[in-house]
């Protein structure tokens, strides 16, 4: 898709009211990266751009201004909104939060923009949310320059073997697990699936999630992701009934089970 005149493709990652009639947006745009922008008058009654300036709506935008915050001068839909509901919608919020937290300002990340768009479309399709999130996390780390080879051993460049067992050594990469390693283990097959962008098998989801969590952690500055907490509540609330003997679903066992963001979901276990 080519630019139309000076218009650029974009998504709104987050919006909040600004003054009485305007919106303050966090925009992620092709060729421009993430930046804040103001949509003046967008909240006036029956102003059509208010409906458009929402997350998950592909947009054509134009903006003017110098300095920190730009002002939008044109807003057009670049197609219908990506219809996310329920779990896929929470996953969408999660992607947005990752971008807001990890992307620097005005650092263009073209491949990431396309990948984000594709990931949202995938979420709307609704299947295999987990593999999609993991692939997005890996692409994001790659783009930010925090890439880590998942398919070779860090100390000797030997290729990772599907039947091997490995541990993550922060700052270095994956090493073959030793009997006395206390770090969480990851199977070679999972690492290879992640490295090649393959679908993860059900038994690989948990270790892939734990691994990506550890890879993202140092870049999040110690503040937890809020959409993870919301997902936990959602997962617990949507369980049809507590599974006998499954504990409270929060607390210690929380990271043990099976929702895309790494939170117990009793409805999946039952």
């Amino acid at each position, binding site marked *: 898709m080519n630019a139309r005149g000076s218009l650029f493709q974009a998504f709104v*990652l*987050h919006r*909040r009211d600004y003054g*009485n009639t305007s919106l303050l947006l966090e925009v992620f745009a092709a060729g421009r990266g993430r930046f804040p922008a103001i949509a003046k008058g967008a909240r006036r009654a*029956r102003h*059509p*751009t208010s*409906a*458009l300036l*929402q*997350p*998950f*709506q592909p947009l054509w935008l134009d903006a003017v201004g110098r300095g920190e915050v730009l002002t939008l001068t044109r807003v057009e*839909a670049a197609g*219908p*909104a990506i219809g*996310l*509901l*329920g779990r896929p*919608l*929470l996953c969408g*919020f*999660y992607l*947005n*939060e990752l971008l*807001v937290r990890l992307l620097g300002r005005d650092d263009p990340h073209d491949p990431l923009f396309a990948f984000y768009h594709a990931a949202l479309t995938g979420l709307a399709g609704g299947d295999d949310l987990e593999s999609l999130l993991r692939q997005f996390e890996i692409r994001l780390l790659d783009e930010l320059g925090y890439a880590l080879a998942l398919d070779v051993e860090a100390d000797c460049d030997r290729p990772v073997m599907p039947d091997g067992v490995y541990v993550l050594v922060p700052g270095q990469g994956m090493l073959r697990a030793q009997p006395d390693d206390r770090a969480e283990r990851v199977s070679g097959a999972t690492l290879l699936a992640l490295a090649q962008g393959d679908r993860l098998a059900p038994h690989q989801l948990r270790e892939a999630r734990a691994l990506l969590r550890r890879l993202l952690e140092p870049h999040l500055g110690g503040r937890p992701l*809020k*959409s993870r*907490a*919301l997902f936990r*509540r*959602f997962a617990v*609330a*949507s369980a*049809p009934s507590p599974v006998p003997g499954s504990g409270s679903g929060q607390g210690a066992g929380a990271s043990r089970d099976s929702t895309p963001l790494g939170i117990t979901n009793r409805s999946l276990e039952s």
Partner: protein
Amino acid sequence: MVDALRCLPGVGPKSAQRIAFHLLERDREGGLRLARIMADAMTRIRRCRRCRTLTEQEVCALCTNPHRDGGLLCVVEQPSEILAIEQATEFRGLYFVLGGRLSPLDGIGPAELGLDLLDARLGGGEVREVILAISPTVEGSATAHFIAESADRHGVSATRIAHGVPLGGELEYLDGGTLALAFNGRRRL
């Protein structure tokens, strides 16, 4: 004083100055009365224990009104919307005020919206239908979905008010999203 006045919505530095001068020079009486009423309201008005709207009582007048139908529960975002619905419609049920919408990036989760209280209400057996009067934004739809799941668990039917073309509005000027919602919500004539 000028600074303090700026906490009012729509009041910028200029208007704050104008209001301050007006009260000091021409209407001290009015200013004092406003100060008294404000102080009183700010300390006495709190959230209704049942519906979370603003009230001077423990439980608000609507919640304690025996003529309202407790089987119908309308969920709104803000207390002001109760007023709007009361004035414009024949709705005779009760309300529940969220105070916002789920928005993880703003740190607004189920706890901030009183969703536990709402869940307990839906599980209490009295409510037959929960009517969601929540903005059709992305955050609004996440909120609606959360409540619909809770209603489903308790065997309460959940409906959403129709969204679409404003009265007197022309289709030509409508944004695509609204038009799509209106289309999906079409009815037999």
